[in-house]
Protein backbone atom coordinates (compact mmCIF):
# COMPACT_ATOMS: atom_id res chain seq x y z
CA UNK A 1 0.00 0.00 0.00
CA UNK A 2 0.96 3.64 0.05
CA UNK A 3 3.75 4.57 2.46
CA UNK A 4 3.73 7.70 4.62
CA UNK A 5 6.57 9.28 2.62
CA UNK A 6 4.67 8.64 -0.58
CA UNK A 7 1.50 10.12 0.91
CA UNK A 8 3.35 13.29 1.92
CA UNK A 9 4.87 13.58 -1.53
CA UNK A 10 1.45 13.07 -3.14
CA UNK A 11 -0.06 15.67 -0.82
CA UNK A 12 2.56 18.20 -1.91
CA UNK A 13 1.83 17.46 -5.57
CA UNK A 14 -1.91 17.81 -4.95
CA UNK A 15 -1.44 21.04 -3.01
CA UNK A 16 0.49 22.60 -5.89
CA UNK A 17 -2.09 21.26 -8.39
CA UNK A 18 -4.92 22.73 -6.32
CA UNK A 19 -3.31 26.19 -6.35
CA UNK A 20 -2.82 25.96 -10.13
CA UNK A 21 -6.43 24.85 -10.61
CA UNK A 22 -7.69 27.67 -8.38
CA UNK A 23 -5.78 30.23 -10.43
CA UNK A 24 -7.16 28.65 -13.62
CA UNK A 25 -10.68 28.81 -12.16
CA UNK A 26 -10.40 32.54 -11.51
CA UNK A 27 -8.33 33.56 -14.53
CA UNK A 28 -9.13 31.21 -17.36
CA UNK A 29 -12.42 29.37 -16.74
CA UNK A 30 -14.67 32.44 -17.17
CA UNK A 31 -13.17 33.06 -20.61
CA UNK A 32 -13.42 29.55 -22.05
CA UNK A 33 -17.16 29.23 -22.08
CA UNK A 34 -18.75 26.75 -24.49
CA UNK A 35 -22.56 26.79 -24.79
CA UNK A 36 -23.06 28.41 -21.38
CA UNK A 37 -20.76 25.85 -19.74
CA UNK A 38 -17.62 26.60 -17.76
CA UNK A 39 -15.23 23.90 -16.53
CA UNK A 40 -15.24 23.58 -12.73
CA UNK A 41 -11.55 23.40 -11.90
CA UNK A 42 -12.09 23.25 -8.13
CA UNK A 43 -14.26 20.15 -8.59
CA UNK A 44 -11.31 18.49 -10.36
CA UNK A 45 -9.02 19.41 -7.47
CA UNK A 46 -11.44 17.83 -4.96
CA UNK A 47 -11.72 14.71 -7.06
CA UNK A 48 -7.94 14.38 -7.12
CA UNK A 49 -7.72 14.72 -3.33
CA UNK A 50 -10.34 12.01 -2.90
CA UNK A 51 -8.81 9.68 -5.48
CA UNK A 52 -5.24 10.02 -4.22
CA UNK A 53 -5.51 10.67 -0.49
CA UNK A 54 -8.78 8.99 0.43
CA UNK A 55 -12.13 10.12 1.75
CA UNK A 56 -10.96 12.06 4.82
CA UNK A 57 -8.72 14.39 2.81
CA UNK A 58 -11.37 14.44 0.08
CA UNK A 59 -14.06 15.77 2.42
CA UNK A 60 -11.81 18.47 3.87
CA UNK A 61 -10.62 19.57 0.41
CA UNK A 62 -14.20 19.45 -0.85
CA UNK A 63 -15.51 21.64 1.93
CA UNK A 64 -12.69 24.21 1.74
CA UNK A 65 -12.69 24.47 -2.06
CA UNK A 66 -16.50 24.41 -2.18
CA UNK A 67 -16.65 27.38 0.19
CA UNK A 68 -14.07 29.15 -1.99
CA UNK A 69 -16.18 28.48 -5.09
CA UNK A 70 -19.30 29.77 -3.35
CA UNK A 71 -17.44 32.93 -2.37
CA UNK A 72 -16.34 33.46 -5.96
CA UNK A 73 -19.67 32.78 -7.64
CA UNK A 74 -23.13 34.28 -7.32
CA UNK A 75 -24.87 30.99 -6.55
CA UNK A 76 -26.46 30.54 -3.10
CA UNK A 77 -23.69 30.17 -0.52
CA UNK A 78 -23.04 26.64 0.73
CA UNK A 79 -24.40 24.69 -2.23
CA UNK A 80 -21.07 23.97 -3.90
CA UNK A 81 -19.45 23.32 -0.50
CA UNK A 82 -22.08 20.63 0.12
CA UNK A 83 -21.66 19.09 -3.35
CA UNK A 84 -17.88 19.02 -3.23
CA UNK A 85 -17.79 17.64 0.33
CA UNK A 86 -19.93 14.73 -0.85
CA UNK A 87 -17.80 14.24 -3.97
CA UNK A 88 -14.61 14.31 -1.88
CA UNK A 89 -15.98 11.67 0.45
CA UNK A 90 -17.45 9.32 -2.14
CA UNK A 91 -14.48 9.58 -4.53
CA UNK A 92 -12.09 8.40 -1.81
CA UNK A 93 -14.50 5.98 -0.16
CA UNK A 94 -13.49 2.78 -1.89
CA UNK A 95 -9.76 3.15 -1.41
CA UNK A 96 -7.03 5.74 -1.59
CA UNK A 97 -4.77 6.03 -4.65
CA UNK A 98 -7.44 4.89 -7.15
CA UNK A 99 -5.87 7.15 -9.74
CA UNK A 100 -2.71 5.02 -10.05
CA UNK A 101 -4.43 1.66 -9.89
CA UNK A 102 -7.43 2.08 -12.15
CA UNK A 103 -7.31 5.09 -14.45
CA UNK A 104 -10.41 3.96 -16.34
CA UNK A 105 -12.70 3.95 -13.33
CA UNK A 106 -11.18 7.25 -12.18
CA UNK A 107 -12.04 8.85 -15.52
CA UNK A 108 -15.58 7.45 -15.64
CA UNK A 109 -15.98 8.58 -12.04
CA UNK A 110 -14.96 12.08 -13.14
CA UNK A 111 -17.92 12.31 -15.52
CA UNK A 112 -20.31 10.69 -13.04
CA UNK A 113 -19.31 13.03 -10.21
CA UNK A 114 -19.44 16.06 -12.52
CA UNK A 115 -23.04 15.13 -13.38
CA UNK A 116 -23.81 14.64 -9.69
CA UNK A 117 -22.50 18.13 -8.86
CA UNK A 118 -24.51 19.69 -11.71
CA UNK A 119 -27.64 17.83 -10.61
CA UNK A 120 -27.39 18.80 -6.94
CA UNK A 121 -26.51 22.40 -7.86
CA UNK A 122 -29.54 22.50 -10.16
CA UNK A 123 -31.89 21.22 -7.48
CA UNK A 124 -30.60 23.66 -4.85
CA UNK A 125 -30.50 26.61 -7.25
CA UNK A 126 -34.07 25.94 -8.33
CA UNK A 127 -35.21 25.50 -4.75
CA UNK A 128 -33.44 28.56 -3.35
CA UNK A 129 -33.82 30.91 -6.32
CA UNK A 130 -37.09 29.54 -7.68
CA UNK A 131 -35.90 29.66 -11.28
CA UNK A 132 -36.72 27.94 -14.52
CA UNK A 133 -37.79 24.49 -15.59
CA UNK A 134 -35.77 21.41 -14.81
CA UNK A 135 -35.79 20.34 -18.48
CA UNK A 136 -34.22 23.62 -19.62
CA UNK A 137 -31.62 23.45 -16.87
CA UNK A 138 -30.86 19.85 -17.82
CA UNK A 139 -30.48 20.66 -21.51
CA UNK A 140 -28.67 23.98 -21.40
CA UNK A 141 -26.68 23.79 -18.20
CA UNK A 142 -26.28 20.32 -16.74
CA UNK A 143 -25.31 18.39 -19.88
CA UNK A 144 -22.84 20.97 -21.30
CA UNK A 145 -21.42 21.57 -17.82
CA UNK A 146 -20.95 17.84 -17.18
CA UNK A 147 -19.26 17.23 -20.52
CA UNK A 148 -16.98 20.24 -20.27
CA UNK A 149 -15.92 19.60 -16.68
CA UNK A 150 -15.62 15.85 -17.40
CA UNK A 151 -13.29 16.51 -20.33
CA UNK A 152 -11.16 18.94 -18.32
CA UNK A 153 -11.10 16.33 -15.55
CA UNK A 154 -9.92 13.66 -17.98
CA UNK A 155 -6.95 15.77 -19.08
CA UNK A 156 -5.94 16.77 -15.54
CA UNK A 157 -6.28 13.21 -14.16
CA UNK A 158 -4.09 11.78 -16.91
CA UNK A 159 -1.42 14.42 -16.26
CA UNK A 160 -1.50 13.95 -12.48
CA UNK A 161 -1.45 10.15 -12.79
CA UNK A 162 1.70 10.45 -14.86
CA UNK A 163 3.32 12.87 -12.42
CA UNK A 164 2.54 10.60 -9.46
CA UNK A 165 3.80 7.50 -11.27
CA UNK A 166 7.04 9.19 -12.21
CA UNK A 167 7.58 10.42 -8.63
CA UNK A 168 7.00 6.87 -7.33
CA UNK A 169 9.45 5.38 -9.82
CA UNK A 170 12.15 7.94 -8.89
CA UNK A 171 11.70 7.18 -5.19
CA UNK A 172 11.94 3.39 -5.68
CA UNK A 173 15.10 3.81 -7.74
CA UNK A 174 16.57 5.96 -4.96
CA UNK A 175 15.83 3.25 -2.39
CA UNK A 176 17.37 0.54 -4.54
CA UNK A 177 20.65 2.41 -5.05
CA UNK A 178 21.05 3.14 -1.35
Amino acid at each position, binding site marked *: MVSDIQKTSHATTLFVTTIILFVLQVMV*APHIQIAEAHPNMLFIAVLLWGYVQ*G*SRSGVIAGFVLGVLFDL*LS*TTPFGVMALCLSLVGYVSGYRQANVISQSKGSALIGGFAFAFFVELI*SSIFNSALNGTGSFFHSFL*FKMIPGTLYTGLACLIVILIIARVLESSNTTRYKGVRYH
Partner: protein
Amino acid sequence: MSSFRMPQRSSRSKRDSQLPGLKILIICIVLCFIAMTVYARESSTGPIHRVKGVVGTVTSPLSHAGSVIAQPFSGIGNVYRNATADEASLTSLEQENATLRGAVERLEEYKQESERLEKLLNIKSTYNLKSQAARVIGSTVDAWNRTIEINKGSNDGLAVNMPVLNSYGLIGQVIEVSATSAKVRLINDEMSALAAMIQSNRIEGILRGSADGSLKLDYIPLDATVTTGDVIITSGSGGVYPKGLPIGEVVNVEKDPSSLYYTITVRPPAGSLAYEEVLVITELNSPDKQPIAPAEKTHENALGTQASPSIQQGSQDSSEQAGQGGSGTSGAKSATEGASGSHGSTQGEG
Protein backbone atom coordinates in the same frame (compact mmCIF):
# COMPACT_ATOMS: atom_id res chain seq x y z
CA MET B 1 -18.99 -1.98 33.80
CA SER B 2 -15.54 -1.93 32.25
CA SER B 3 -16.15 -5.28 30.56
CA PHE B 4 -19.07 -3.68 28.69
CA ARG B 5 -17.06 -0.64 27.58
CA MET B 6 -14.25 -2.50 25.89
CA PRO B 7 -16.27 -4.07 23.05
CA GLN B 8 -18.02 -0.72 22.43
CA ARG B 9 -14.67 1.04 21.91
CA SER B 10 -13.39 -1.58 19.57
CA SER B 11 -16.55 -1.57 17.46
CA ARG B 12 -16.42 2.23 17.24
CA SER B 13 -12.78 2.22 16.15
CA LYS B 14 -13.60 -0.56 13.68
CA ARG B 15 -16.43 1.53 12.22
CA ASP B 16 -14.12 4.57 12.03
CA SER B 17 -11.56 2.61 10.11
CA GLN B 18 -14.25 1.26 7.78
CA LEU B 19 -15.76 4.68 7.13
CA PRO B 20 -12.89 7.15 7.38
CA GLY B 21 -13.98 10.76 7.20
CA LEU B 22 -17.66 10.08 7.87
CA LYS B 23 -17.68 12.24 10.99
CA ILE B 24 -15.98 15.08 9.12
CA LEU B 25 -18.48 14.70 6.28
CA ILE B 26 -21.43 14.97 8.65
CA ILE B 27 -19.92 18.07 10.28
CA CYS B 28 -19.31 19.63 6.84
CA ILE B 29 -22.88 18.91 5.71
CA VAL B 30 -24.28 20.50 8.86
CA LEU B 31 -22.01 23.53 8.36
CA CYS B 32 -23.16 23.82 4.74
CA PHE B 33 -26.83 23.88 5.72
CA ILE B 34 -26.12 26.44 8.44
CA ALA B 35 -24.24 28.58 5.89
CA MET B 36 -27.11 28.31 3.39
CA THR B 37 -29.63 29.39 6.02
CA VAL B 38 -27.50 32.30 7.26
CA TYR B 39 -26.84 33.46 3.67
CA ALA B 40 -30.51 33.29 2.72
CA ARG B 41 -31.54 35.29 5.79
CA GLU B 42 -28.84 37.94 5.93
CA SER B 43 -28.93 41.31 4.17
CA SER B 44 -26.42 42.48 1.57
CA THR B 45 -24.28 43.88 4.42
CA GLY B 46 -24.22 40.58 6.32
CA PRO B 47 -21.02 38.73 7.24
CA ILE B 48 -21.05 36.25 4.34
CA HIS B 49 -21.73 39.00 1.80
CA ARG B 50 -18.87 41.00 3.33
CA VAL B 51 -16.50 38.02 3.07
CA LYS B 52 -17.63 37.58 -0.56
CA GLY B 53 -16.73 41.21 -1.15
CA VAL B 54 -13.28 40.72 0.35
CA VAL B 55 -12.67 37.57 -1.73
CA GLY B 56 -13.84 39.49 -4.81
CA THR B 57 -11.37 42.27 -4.05
CA VAL B 58 -8.51 39.81 -3.48
CA THR B 59 -9.18 37.84 -6.66
CA SER B 60 -10.03 40.79 -8.91
CA PRO B 61 -6.36 41.28 -10.00
CA LEU B 62 -6.36 37.65 -11.16
CA SER B 63 -9.67 38.15 -13.03
CA HIS B 64 -8.30 41.31 -14.57
CA ALA B 65 -5.11 39.53 -15.67
CA GLY B 66 -7.26 36.75 -17.16
CA SER B 67 -9.35 39.19 -19.16
CA VAL B 68 -6.22 40.95 -20.44
CA ILE B 69 -4.76 37.61 -21.54
CA ALA B 70 -8.06 36.48 -23.10
CA GLN B 71 -8.73 39.74 -24.94
CA PRO B 72 -6.51 39.06 -28.00
CA PHE B 73 -8.05 35.60 -28.40
CA SER B 74 -11.61 36.94 -28.34
CA GLY B 75 -10.82 38.87 -31.52
CA ILE B 76 -9.62 35.78 -33.39
CA GLY B 77 -13.14 34.89 -34.54
CA ASN B 78 -13.69 38.39 -35.93
CA VAL B 79 -10.32 38.39 -37.69
CA TYR B 80 -11.15 35.09 -39.35
CA ARG B 81 -14.62 36.29 -40.39
CA ASN B 82 -13.22 39.55 -41.76
CA ALA B 83 -10.43 37.81 -43.65
CA THR B 84 -12.80 35.34 -45.27
CA ALA B 85 -15.56 37.86 -46.14
CA ASP B 86 -16.58 37.52 -49.79
CA GLU B 87 -17.20 40.30 -52.33
CA ALA B 88 -20.97 40.20 -51.84
CA SER B 89 -20.63 40.71 -48.07
CA LEU B 90 -18.27 43.65 -48.55
CA THR B 91 -20.61 45.28 -51.10
CA SER B 92 -23.57 44.80 -48.79
CA LEU B 93 -21.58 46.27 -45.87
CA GLU B 94 -20.61 49.30 -47.98
CA GLN B 95 -24.27 49.86 -48.88
CA GLU B 96 -25.28 49.49 -45.24
CA ASN B 97 -22.56 51.96 -44.26
CA ALA B 98 -23.86 54.52 -46.76
CA THR B 99 -27.43 54.07 -45.47
CA LEU B 100 -26.28 54.46 -41.88
CA ARG B 101 -24.31 57.62 -42.74
CA GLY B 102 -27.50 59.09 -44.15
CA ALA B 103 -29.41 58.08 -41.05
CA VAL B 104 -26.77 59.66 -38.79
CA GLU B 105 -27.01 62.95 -40.70
CA ARG B 106 -30.79 62.95 -40.38
CA LEU B 107 -30.57 62.12 -36.66
CA GLU B 108 -28.07 64.94 -36.15
CA GLU B 109 -30.58 67.31 -37.69
CA TYR B 110 -33.32 66.01 -35.43
CA LYS B 111 -31.03 66.29 -32.41
CA GLN B 112 -30.27 69.94 -33.10
CA GLU B 113 -33.93 70.67 -33.65
CA SER B 114 -34.78 68.90 -30.41
CA GLU B 115 -32.15 70.92 -28.51
CA ARG B 116 -33.53 74.19 -29.90
CA LEU B 117 -37.08 73.25 -28.94
CA GLU B 118 -35.97 72.10 -25.53
CA LYS B 119 -34.26 75.43 -24.84
CA LEU B 120 -37.24 77.30 -26.19
CA LEU B 121 -39.78 75.58 -24.07
CA ASN B 122 -37.43 75.26 -21.12
CA ILE B 123 -38.37 71.65 -20.79
CA LYS B 124 -36.24 69.88 -18.30
CA SER B 125 -35.06 66.47 -19.37
CA THR B 126 -36.97 63.68 -17.68
CA TYR B 127 -33.76 62.52 -16.09
CA ASN B 128 -30.01 62.97 -16.26
CA LEU B 129 -27.84 59.96 -15.85
CA LYS B 130 -25.00 60.27 -13.40
CA SER B 131 -22.83 57.36 -14.30
CA GLN B 132 -19.58 55.54 -13.76
CA ALA B 133 -17.75 53.93 -16.66
CA ALA B 134 -16.16 50.55 -15.99
CA ARG B 135 -14.28 47.83 -17.77
CA VAL B 136 -15.41 44.20 -17.81
CA ILE B 137 -12.75 42.03 -16.19
CA GLY B 138 -14.46 38.67 -16.04
CA SER B 139 -17.61 36.69 -16.24
CA THR B 140 -19.34 34.08 -14.12
CA VAL B 141 -17.37 31.12 -12.80
CA ASP B 142 -20.39 28.83 -12.86
CA ALA B 143 -22.95 27.82 -15.46
CA TRP B 144 -25.93 28.74 -13.31
CA ASN B 145 -25.69 32.50 -13.60
CA ARG B 146 -25.07 34.94 -16.40
CA THR B 147 -23.01 37.56 -14.65
CA ILE B 148 -20.02 39.72 -15.48
CA GLU B 149 -17.43 41.30 -13.22
CA ILE B 150 -16.42 44.93 -13.63
CA ASN B 151 -13.39 46.80 -12.34
CA LYS B 152 -15.28 49.38 -10.29
CA GLY B 153 -16.70 48.86 -6.82
CA SER B 154 -17.94 50.62 -3.72
CA ASN B 155 -14.82 52.84 -3.71
CA ASP B 156 -16.12 54.36 -6.95
CA GLY B 157 -19.63 54.87 -5.63
CA LEU B 158 -21.20 51.69 -6.94
CA ALA B 159 -23.92 49.96 -4.95
CA VAL B 160 -26.14 46.94 -5.33
CA ASN B 161 -29.15 47.46 -7.59
CA MET B 162 -27.61 50.01 -9.97
CA PRO B 163 -28.45 49.58 -13.68
CA VAL B 164 -25.65 48.82 -16.13
CA LEU B 165 -25.54 49.83 -19.79
CA ASN B 166 -23.28 49.27 -22.72
CA SER B 167 -23.28 51.22 -25.94
CA TYR B 168 -26.34 49.32 -27.21
CA GLY B 169 -28.55 49.82 -24.17
CA LEU B 170 -29.39 48.13 -20.91
CA ILE B 171 -27.43 44.98 -20.11
CA GLY B 172 -28.01 44.29 -16.42
CA GLN B 173 -27.94 45.26 -12.80
CA VAL B 174 -25.28 45.30 -10.07
CA ILE B 175 -25.88 42.46 -7.62
CA GLU B 176 -22.69 42.31 -5.56
CA VAL B 177 -20.17 45.00 -4.76
CA SER B 178 -16.71 44.76 -3.28
CA ALA B 179 -14.30 47.65 -2.75
CA THR B 180 -12.69 47.46 -6.18
CA SER B 181 -15.02 45.30 -8.26
CA ALA B 182 -18.68 44.49 -8.74
CA LYS B 183 -20.78 41.68 -10.18
CA VAL B 184 -23.50 42.45 -12.68
CA ARG B 185 -26.42 40.14 -13.40
CA LEU B 186 -27.19 40.28 -17.12
CA ILE B 187 -30.76 40.79 -18.28
CA ASN B 188 -30.79 37.39 -20.01
CA ASP B 189 -30.01 35.60 -16.72
CA GLU B 190 -32.74 33.25 -15.57
CA MET B 191 -33.21 35.23 -12.34
CA SER B 192 -33.45 38.60 -14.04
CA ALA B 193 -36.79 40.38 -14.46
CA LEU B 194 -37.47 44.02 -15.25
CA ALA B 195 -40.34 46.25 -16.25
CA ALA B 196 -40.25 46.93 -19.99
CA MET B 197 -42.56 48.34 -22.62
CA ILE B 198 -43.13 48.15 -26.33
CA GLN B 199 -41.96 51.48 -27.72
CA SER B 200 -44.62 51.77 -30.42
CA ASN B 201 -47.75 51.20 -28.33
CA ARG B 202 -46.36 51.89 -24.81
CA ILE B 203 -47.75 48.66 -23.35
CA GLU B 204 -45.84 47.45 -20.33
CA GLY B 205 -44.79 43.94 -19.48
CA ILE B 206 -42.11 42.06 -17.59
CA LEU B 207 -38.95 41.11 -19.44
CA ARG B 208 -37.39 37.92 -18.13
CA GLY B 209 -34.24 35.99 -18.89
CA SER B 210 -34.32 32.25 -19.41
CA ALA B 211 -32.14 29.17 -19.13
CA ASP B 212 -31.34 29.21 -22.85
CA GLY B 213 -30.31 32.89 -22.73
CA SER B 214 -33.29 34.30 -24.63
CA LEU B 215 -35.42 37.20 -23.38
CA LYS B 216 -39.17 36.78 -22.91
CA LEU B 217 -41.62 39.64 -22.57
CA ASP B 218 -44.54 38.54 -20.39
CA TYR B 219 -47.92 40.02 -19.50
CA ILE B 220 -48.62 41.67 -22.86
CA PRO B 221 -52.38 41.21 -23.34
CA LEU B 222 -53.74 39.54 -26.46
CA ASP B 223 -55.68 42.62 -27.51
CA ALA B 224 -52.44 44.59 -28.01
CA THR B 225 -50.84 44.85 -31.43
CA VAL B 226 -47.33 43.42 -31.37
CA THR B 227 -45.28 42.80 -34.46
CA THR B 228 -41.83 41.44 -35.16
CA GLY B 229 -39.30 44.26 -35.10
CA ASP B 230 -41.03 46.30 -32.38
CA VAL B 231 -38.47 47.96 -30.14
CA ILE B 232 -38.52 47.14 -26.42
CA ILE B 233 -37.42 49.77 -23.92
CA THR B 234 -37.37 50.04 -20.14
CA SER B 235 -40.64 51.37 -18.73
CA GLY B 236 -39.19 53.01 -15.63
CA SER B 237 -41.72 51.31 -13.36
CA GLY B 238 -40.22 50.19 -10.09
CA GLY B 239 -37.73 53.05 -10.02
CA VAL B 240 -34.66 50.87 -10.58
CA TYR B 241 -34.09 51.44 -14.29
CA PRO B 242 -34.51 54.81 -15.99
CA LYS B 243 -37.29 55.00 -18.54
CA GLY B 244 -36.62 54.61 -22.24
CA LEU B 245 -33.37 52.63 -22.29
CA PRO B 246 -33.31 50.37 -25.34
CA ILE B 247 -33.25 46.64 -24.58
CA GLY B 248 -33.87 44.87 -27.87
CA GLU B 249 -36.46 44.10 -30.50
CA VAL B 250 -39.25 41.58 -30.85
CA VAL B 251 -38.19 38.58 -32.93
CA ASN B 252 -41.09 36.22 -32.31
CA VAL B 253 -44.70 36.63 -31.23
CA GLU B 254 -46.77 33.59 -30.31
CA LYS B 255 -50.44 33.63 -29.52
CA ASP B 256 -51.64 30.81 -27.31
CA PRO B 257 -55.47 30.62 -27.33
CA SER B 258 -55.49 29.19 -23.81
CA SER B 259 -53.48 32.09 -22.42
CA LEU B 260 -54.40 35.69 -21.68
CA TYR B 261 -51.04 36.97 -22.81
CA TYR B 262 -48.68 36.76 -25.79
CA THR B 263 -45.46 34.77 -25.65
CA ILE B 264 -42.96 37.30 -26.99
CA THR B 265 -39.28 36.61 -27.61
CA VAL B 266 -36.97 39.61 -27.58
CA ARG B 267 -33.50 39.74 -29.04
CA PRO B 268 -30.91 42.25 -27.81
CA PRO B 269 -29.30 44.34 -30.59
CA ALA B 270 -26.59 42.63 -32.63
CA GLY B 271 -23.23 43.01 -30.91
CA SER B 272 -24.72 43.93 -27.57
CA LEU B 273 -23.44 40.69 -26.05
CA ALA B 274 -19.83 41.79 -26.54
CA TYR B 275 -19.18 43.46 -23.22
CA GLU B 276 -15.90 45.29 -22.82
CA GLU B 277 -16.79 48.68 -21.42
CA VAL B 278 -19.98 49.40 -19.54
CA LEU B 279 -21.63 52.31 -17.82
CA VAL B 280 -23.11 51.99 -14.34
CA ILE B 281 -25.87 54.48 -13.61
CA THR B 282 -25.10 55.69 -10.11
CA GLU B 283 -27.89 58.23 -9.79
CA LEU B 284 -31.20 58.81 -11.49
CA ASN B 285 -31.62 62.56 -11.49
CA SER B 286 -35.37 62.52 -11.60
CA PRO B 287 -37.18 65.65 -10.34
CA ASP B 288 -36.53 64.65 -6.72
CA LYS B 289 -32.85 63.77 -7.53
CA GLN B 290 -32.64 60.68 -5.41
CA PRO B 291 -29.68 58.34 -5.74
CA ILE B 292 -30.36 54.68 -6.37
CA ALA B 293 -30.75 53.14 -2.94
CA PRO B 294 -28.55 50.17 -2.20
CA ALA B 295 -30.54 46.98 -1.98
CA GLU B 296 -31.40 45.36 1.29
CA LYS B 297 -31.27 41.97 -0.33
CA THR B 298 -30.12 41.16 -3.83
CA HIS B 299 -32.75 38.52 -4.40
CA GLU B 300 -35.56 40.73 -3.20
CA ASN B 301 -34.45 43.51 -5.48
CA ALA B 302 -34.17 41.21 -8.43
CA LEU B 303 -37.79 40.44 -7.81
CA GLY B 304 -38.59 44.00 -6.82
CA THR B 305 -39.21 44.96 -10.41
CA GLN B 306 -41.58 42.06 -10.73
CA ALA B 307 -43.73 43.47 -8.01
CA SER B 308 -45.17 46.15 -10.28
CA PRO B 309 -46.32 44.42 -13.41
CA SER B 310 -49.48 46.47 -13.69
CA ILE B 311 -49.66 49.16 -16.30
CA GLN B 312 -49.70 52.49 -14.54
CA GLN B 313 -51.85 55.02 -16.31
CA GLY B 314 -49.82 57.95 -15.03
CA SER B 315 -46.62 56.39 -16.17
CA GLN B 316 -48.12 55.65 -19.56
CA ASP B 317 -49.24 59.24 -19.93
CA SER B 318 -45.84 60.61 -19.07
CA SER B 319 -44.16 58.19 -21.43
CA GLU B 320 -46.44 59.34 -24.21
CA GLN B 321 -45.49 62.88 -23.33
CA ALA B 322 -41.83 61.97 -23.60
CA GLY B 323 -42.58 60.80 -27.12
CA GLN B 324 -41.31 57.95 -29.23
CA GLY B 325 -37.78 57.50 -27.95
CA GLY B 326 -37.67 61.10 -26.90
CA SER B 327 -35.91 61.93 -23.70
CA GLY B 328 -35.37 58.29 -22.86
CA THR B 329 -33.40 57.63 -25.98
CA SER B 330 -31.46 60.83 -25.61
CA GLY B 331 -30.64 59.84 -22.05
CA ALA B 332 -29.31 56.52 -23.24
CA LYS B 333 -27.37 58.22 -25.96
CA SER B 334 -25.74 60.66 -23.60
CA ALA B 335 -24.89 57.78 -21.31
CA THR B 336 -23.19 56.06 -24.22
CA GLU B 337 -21.21 59.19 -24.95
CA GLY B 338 -20.09 59.25 -21.32
CA ALA B 339 -18.84 55.68 -21.58
CA SER B 340 -16.90 56.22 -24.77
CA GLY B 341 -15.38 59.42 -23.50
CA SER B 342 -14.32 58.23 -20.11
CA HIS B 343 -12.71 54.89 -21.06
CA GLY B 344 -13.52 53.31 -17.77
CA SER B 345 -11.79 55.81 -15.57
CA THR B 346 -13.80 58.95 -14.97
CA GLN B 347 -17.15 59.69 -13.52
CA GLY B 348 -19.34 61.56 -15.91
CA GLU B 349 -22.82 62.88 -16.07
CA GLY B 350 -24.62 61.90 -19.20
